[in-house]
């Protein structure tokens, strides 16, 4: 992007980029509304360069957490560090590097898309007024809104409004993007585009925090996930780490059920069950590699007709953690 190049060219040398410093780190973040605890001692950790899928049913405290990160809500206790700096104290230095889409887009209905973006751009002290026009045009084109740029916001469809919100987050080169439900209201084509956009941003080196109810999508693009429920962060880590928490299940198909079961138990697999009808033995895999199970079954003298390992889906994990499916309104 030319705007980024310009900005880079006009800047002085800042402190060196430190990949070890996480993009977001909170410790003991807590917020109450009256007697209700909306966010309870959340230790969020979003590493640099990650695409962090922030999951949780409605009312789980995701949005409250995001609002605290961005300085819209004050925390009752706990600390927030964003891009290596304390928040909200360093808000004015940190937020220019952060693009945000919070709980859907919000713009002035009587202004055009371009005018709305210009309004935000002139409000940003770190935005170069000389490149404002180009950057607005680039942001609009990046979300595919160039054709509707001159239309009044009130005439936008839900999807167009969502795209304009994304464009606002992309007015400046960002080190961190906080996208709350970015695909809300988008058609499948738009959803695919957003997925592509997030990947692109991540490839450029930006850290992205995406909260989404589309689990499949988060699975596709996220490198890390965090799952919230009832104001608590239940699980957090890389996608593989979190998914492996829910144990894989190995299924051995053999007519010699007794031998197979004995072999599995000898290996130390837990929760072994017999399914005589389908001639199958099932057990939780745990730390044992699948090939070791195959070897053990054969060594036990059973005729191995099939062996499958099933890892749980994010959704199963989610339901097992939160006790409910997605989009359950409280």
């Amino acid at each position: 992007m030319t705007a980024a190049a310009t900005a880079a060219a006009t800047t002085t040398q800042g402190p060196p980029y430190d990949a070890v410093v996480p993009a977001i780190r909170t410790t003991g973040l807590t917020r109450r509304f009256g007697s209700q605890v909306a966010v309870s001692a959340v230790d969020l950790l979003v590493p640099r360069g990650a695409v962090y899928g922030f999951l949780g049913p409605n009312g789980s405290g995701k949005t409250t957490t995001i609002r605290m990160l961005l300085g819209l809500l004050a925390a009752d206790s706990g600390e927030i560090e964003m891009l290596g700096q304390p928040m909200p104290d360093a808000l004015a230095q940190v937020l220019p590097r952060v693009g945000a889409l919070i709980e859907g887009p919000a713009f002035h209905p009587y202004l055009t898309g371009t005018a709305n973006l210009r309004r935000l751009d002139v409000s940003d002290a770190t935005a170069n007024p000389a490149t404002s026009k180009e950057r607005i045009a680039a942001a609009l084109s990046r979300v595919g809104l160039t054709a509707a740029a001159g239309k009044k916001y009130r005439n936008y469809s839900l999807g167009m409004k969502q795209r304009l919100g994304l464009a606002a987050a992309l007015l400046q080169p960002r080190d961190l993007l906080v996208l709350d439900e970015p695909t809300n209201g988008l058609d499948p084509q738009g959803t695919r585009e957003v997925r592509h956009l997030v990947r692109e941003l991540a490839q450029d080196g930006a850290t992205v925090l995406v909260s989404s109810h589309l689990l499949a999508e988060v699975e596709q693009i996220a490198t890390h996930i965090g799952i919230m429920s009832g104001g608590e962060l239940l699980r957090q880590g890389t996608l593989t780490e979190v998914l492996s928490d829910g144990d894989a299940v190995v299924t051995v198909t053999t007519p010699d059920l007794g031998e197979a079961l004995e072999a599995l138990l000898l290996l130390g697999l837990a929760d072994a069950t017999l399914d005589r009808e389908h001639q199958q033995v099932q057990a939780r895999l745990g730390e044992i590699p699948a090939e070791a199970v195959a070897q053990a079954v054969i060594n036990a003298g059973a005729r191995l007709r099939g062996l499958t390992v099933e890892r749980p889906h994010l959704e199963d994990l989610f339901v097992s953690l939160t006790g409910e499916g997605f989009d359950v309104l409280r």
Partner: protein
Amino acid sequence: MSFADLTLPVVRPRYRGAFWRLYKGEVGISLRRRRNLALLAVLSAIPLMIGIAVYLSTPRAGDGPAFLGQITGNGLFLVFTALTVCIPVFLPLVVGVVSGDSIAGEAGSGTLRYLLTVPVTRTRLLVAKTLGVATFTALAVAVVAVVGLVTGAVLFGLGNVTLLSGDTVSLGTGLLRALGVSAYVMVALFGLAAGGMFISTLTENAIAAMATTIGLVMVSALLDAVPQLSAIHGVLLTHNWLGFGEFLRSNVDTAAVLRWSALHLAYAAVFLSLAWARLQSKDVTS
């Protein structure tokens, strides 16, 4: 972009004139809003209508609002008549709408959260909004005065000005005094505008904030009309609004004008510091 672009400095440079751009953006938005333009149109219609009414039927001295009888002799008096007519209701209405909407409107539509995450710090936002509201207030008063002056000049011509004291001054001095009158009205309404801004930080419902601000004027006017409360009349928000009459006396009591203006500005200072405190501690949940 490549990963190397993330060596962008941790502190982004700020461009010069950033506050001026923010302020201009505020004013620009208020002037592009159809509702605000309609308010200005209504205000400009008032001197126009008074002028035409006087042109069609010459009133006698002592009839109607102050200065009405003098308009036929000198169009400049249309400025004073129009301001006298507008200051109890129409101008406070306009100021109430614009100031009441200032923060609550943005909070209600959700644009406040995007402004704050741009980021515009809350103090900066309040200062820019205050200047924006002050600009619109001044503009509203100027619209009444200028339309009054032009209408009066076209229909009745301009000439030497007879002051309230019966002395006559030149047109130039009269115009200067009209400028003083307008400036005083602007300062007086700024106290109200600040009140509206404070109320605007209390709610996300812009209509409620506007109504409360206008209610503030009515309560003050009501208290001002109760003789048993004469002890507090002097410090009421609206009590000295008609003090602009001082500019139309032969010997302007500058001390009194400054004292009243100081009261308006004291109201503004208290209201704005309240607005600041409220905005600082406000949870933006919309």
